[in-house]
């Protein structure tokens, strides 16, 4: 159950996606997410679907692995869909007491549902094909310009945005997620062997039942954190300054191609959604040229 959360779980495989520069993947994920909000029509969603399916196929990660990430948000998904289904105004299709479903409600619910699912799938592709270290390297590099900014705190103190530290914290967190999940599983089983019951009872009872799980888990997490800090210091870690990189990020030709592909996809989706407007604009062009022409003529 707990092991099923895919986020932050790298899936080793040999694919083009695995080899791409993490910055490309970060940007691509962002662009894909934006495209989900740009898309409004079935054609737009169709295009997003095709793109997503192609990318998933290219990643060589079994599809089952991707959908595992969905299980963890199923509650959120259902609540969101239900909200939209029942609360959006429009022509009533069905009514029961104060509950009613409208045509617009169905439309938005489907749209929001698809958006959420694609969003998770899209970001899962990124986390499954990028090692957490690459990911934080990418983030660190992408955030580098931020290093120059600082907030002055008095004459001698400056608060700089700790870009390196943030990246390091994230990468460590990602490394320890699977370890802590496994540990949760172990502690849970051990307490179940002592008759603990994590499933039945009402909400308060369930919350109470978590204490025997959470107390040892937190203690262990702290212990690990202390150990890790020691181990890092012993290996001469002293922050980002003066550090070199084993794998400095460098764009290759495949990265440029990937940028091209994702931008192309985005333009097409935008174009389709804005198709009518653009069409209208193009149609209006001769008239506009005429006006300009006449305007120039008027000077002569």
């Amino acid at each position: 159950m707990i092991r099923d959360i895919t986020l932050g779980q790298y899936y080793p495989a040999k694919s083009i996606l695995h080899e791409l520069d993490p910055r490309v993947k970060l940007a691509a994920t962002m662009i894909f997410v934006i495209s989900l909000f740009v898309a409004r029509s079935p054609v737009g969603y169709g295009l997003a679907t095709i793109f997503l399916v192609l990318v998933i196929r290219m990643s060589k990660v079994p599809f089952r692995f991707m959908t595992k990430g969905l299980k963890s948000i199923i509650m959120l998904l259902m609540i969101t869909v239900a909200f939209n289904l029942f609360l959006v105004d429009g022509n009533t299709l069905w009514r029961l007491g104060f509950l009613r479903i409208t045509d617009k409600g169905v439309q938005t619910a489907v749209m929001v549902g698809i958006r959420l699912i694609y969003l998770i799938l899209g970001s899962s592709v990124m986390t499954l094909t990028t090692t957490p270290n690459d990911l934080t390297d990418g983030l660190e590099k992408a955030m580098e310009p931020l290093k120059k900014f600082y907030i002055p705190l008095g004459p001698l103190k400056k608060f700089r945005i700790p870009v390196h530290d943030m990246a390091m914290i994230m990468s460590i967190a990602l490394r320890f997620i699977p370890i802590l999940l496994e540990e949760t599983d172990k502690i849970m089983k051990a307490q179940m062997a002592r008759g603990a019951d994590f499933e039945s009872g009402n909400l308060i009872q369930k919350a109470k039942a978590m204490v025997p799980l959470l107390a040892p888990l937190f203690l262990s997490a702290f212990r690990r954190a202390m150990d890790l800090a020691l181990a890092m210091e012993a290996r001469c870690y002293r922050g980002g300054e003066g550090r070199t990189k084993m794998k400095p990020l460098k764009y290759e030709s495949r990265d440029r191609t990937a940028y091209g592909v994702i931008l192309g996809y985005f333009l097409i989706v935008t174009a389709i959604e804005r198709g009518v407007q653009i069409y209208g604009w193009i149609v209006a062009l001769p008239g506009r040229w005429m006006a300009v022409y006449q305007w120039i003529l008027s000077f002569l």
Partner: protein
Amino acid sequence: MIRAEKLTFDYEKLDETGQAVSMKRAVDGVDLEVRSGEFVAILGHNGSGKSTLAKHINAILLPTEGTLWVDGMDTKDENRLWDIRQDAGMVFQNPDNQIIGTVVEEDVGFGPENLGVPTDEIWRRVEESLQAVGMLKYRKHSPNRLSGGQKQRVAIAGVMAMHPRCIVLDEPTAMLDPHGRRSVIRTVQKLNKEEQITVILITHYMEEVIEADRVFVMDDGKVVMQGTPKEIFSQVDRLKELRLDVPQATLVAYELQKRGFPLPDGILSNEELVEELCRLKSKM
């Protein structure tokens, strides 16, 4: 290489307000010298102070009293802190809690990255170190999928990549199964012999110290026995008193001695015992 003089360390126990309420002397006036290229084992129970001592060598802890020199550098000298840590690498007990990278090779590169080693050089060092511990073919693996022994060997490679002259291993095998334990010890022995790395192995397993050059036995913060493994294990009574393990071959010899058979002291292995027994039998 490493020299300690009257090294003493007190742990302070703090109450909620941060006031020291009690002191515990963990290391009590230890004198110790380790020469370059030696394989030294420190044997003792949990709470005997052996791990506290080990943490001094890497300047993670600083002595309350006394002094410790690593390669002539006083560990209290803050300016040399990073030199000391680079020179005397440290491997810890829990394999999970010391691997920082999410891919084996990235973890091995962590130390050199911190030292500011140029990228090409890092790659060379990573390859060398992984080769030295026999983990090269796992370089692209996630540490989470490795066995305990393999993880510890990765941790050793991570230290080796910093090009230290000395490695301190703080109970590196306590959480491993016999198979993993053997692979780690063999790796350490190999590094000692082939790369002339000075090794300080902290452990409570006697079978790991048999091939050391010298053994220190600690109890209650003090060094209570020191010598070659042969010298140490010939004192079976003393070891039993400290409730430390003794090789079974040594114990059998000891039992036979008690029954009046004239066997020499300090038998450590089956081979030696068999030889001695055959000699004895032929004389009877």
